[in-house]
């Protein structure tokens, strides 16, 4: 009998949904358990941080790491797990591209603290207290990790071998990745373990008209028809997003918001979406449209950063808001 593989799962700045996604492979977890020993999995097994420290380097065969890097402790764990693992997988949008918590790059620590601890409607904080990495209470000293200004992806922190995008990654892709690992049939280092196609390629709707007269907010649309949402004027990130999910959002008559990350061969999800939008929005009478009318049309694209980089601002070409 060949020796069993050694797996580890870990989360950093994440929501726990990636862990639930692993639980959601249901009985397939038994296949995994048959082929691999899970050495470390906060949600399901009691292994300690210290146990990991005591492992020899490279002891873990594959570590699935979810969550972005937001504070000093997560950074430390990323380094530790990198050292102890032969293969490190950035699991889920947060680890792979920064995820929704990565939108905090529109601000910085000061901005976050101001809102959360001073300005919020229910705060009573006349003395202006803020959490501090180290603080004296009457009984002694208390410490908490240092909160960073900028959210980073896993590969901006340590070397990453594979990426499994999605928020959370679709069950099918998880099974596929785990299957490939068990068979020892891994793609080249640096690969994204997901199909090389866009969400549109998998969507139940087809893009046919390829033109829209105006952008509409989803709540303004009285009845969403059974056809491509983008062509109904609803901003759908499908063309700029990597597939693999099968398009569950459109099944619920909601647009893709881009959790699969950029399409293959695209450096920047927002850049790609701008291209896609520019080729269909306002082409009806482009020859006669004045610049002013065009601007008005583009006013419909509100919050471009939050819309185009919902799951990946930290990994965009321009990774954060410039804060003087």
């Amino acid at each position, binding site marked *: 009998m060949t020796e069993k593989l050694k797996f580890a799962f870990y989360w950093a700045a994440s929501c726990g949904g990636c862990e639930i996604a692993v639980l959601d492979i249901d009985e397939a977890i038994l296949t995994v358990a048959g082929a691999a020993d899970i050495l470390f999995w906060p949600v399901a097994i009691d292994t300690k941080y210290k146990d990991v420290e005591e492992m020899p380097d490279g002891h873990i065969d594959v570590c699935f790491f979810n969550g972005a890097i937001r504070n000093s402790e997560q950074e430390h764990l990323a380094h530790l797990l990198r050292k102890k693992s032969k293969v490190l997988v950035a699991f889920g949008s947060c680890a792979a591209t920064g995820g929704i918590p990565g939108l905090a790059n*529109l601000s910085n620590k000061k901005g976050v603290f101001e809102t959360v601890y001073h300005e919020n409607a229910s705060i009573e904080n006349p003395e202006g207290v803020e959490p501090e990495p180290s603080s004296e209470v009457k009984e002694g000293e208390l410490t908490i990790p240092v909160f960073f200004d900028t959210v980073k992806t896993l590969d901006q922190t340590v070397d990453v071998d594979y990426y499994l995008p999605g928020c959370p990654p679709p069950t099918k892709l998880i099974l596929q990745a785990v299957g490939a690992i068990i068979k020892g049939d891994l793609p080249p280092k640096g690969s994204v373990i997901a199909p090389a196609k866009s969400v549109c390629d998998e969507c139940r709707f087809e893009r046919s008209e390829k033109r829209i007269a105006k952008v509409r907010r989803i709540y303004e649309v009285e009845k969403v028809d059974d056809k491509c949402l983008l062509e109904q004027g609803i901003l759908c990130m499908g063309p700029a997003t990597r597939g693999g999910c099968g398009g569950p959002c459109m099944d619920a008559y909601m647009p893709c918001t881009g959790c699969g990350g950029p399409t293959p061969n*695209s*450096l*920047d999800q*927002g*850049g*790609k979406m*701008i*291209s896609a*939008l*520019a*080729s269909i*929005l*306002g*082409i009806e009478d*482009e*020859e006669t449209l004045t*610049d002013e009318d*065009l*601007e008005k049309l*583009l006013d419909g*694209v509100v*919050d*471009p*950063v939050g819309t*185009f980089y919902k799951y990946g601002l930290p990994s*965009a*070409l*321009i*990774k*954060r*808001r*410039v*804060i*003087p």
Partner: protein
Amino acid sequence: MSDFEPVVVAFLCNWCSYAGADLAGTSRLKYPPNVRSIRVMCSGRVDPVFVLDALKEGIDGVLVAGCHPGDCHYQSGNYKTNRKMKLIQRLLKDLNMDPRRVRFDYISASEGQKFADVVTEFVQTLKELGPNPLKGECQ
């Protein structure tokens, strides 16, 4: 700030703007030497990613120029690029980068003077804006 010399990348359409720039050169028109020109077959070929990447690399300003309305050899590459550039500007604004760091213009093959004027004006604006805040930032 006065001795700051911005670095500009210009994506110029082969059929019109690139020829326009050429004409500006051969006519010995005076314009600032800050521009590195890149010839493209049509302004429509300019992917927003090129623009964002240039800014990320610390380039101070990106100019894209194409054929006048109606003149694009590929019919509507220039209109499309106009829309792209406007969207990029909106993106930059929200990232707190001055949208004036990117510029789109129609420049024909015969408009050597317009090319020189656009470049002069653009470089002046960039001088006022100062260096790209992303410059030197290890991203």
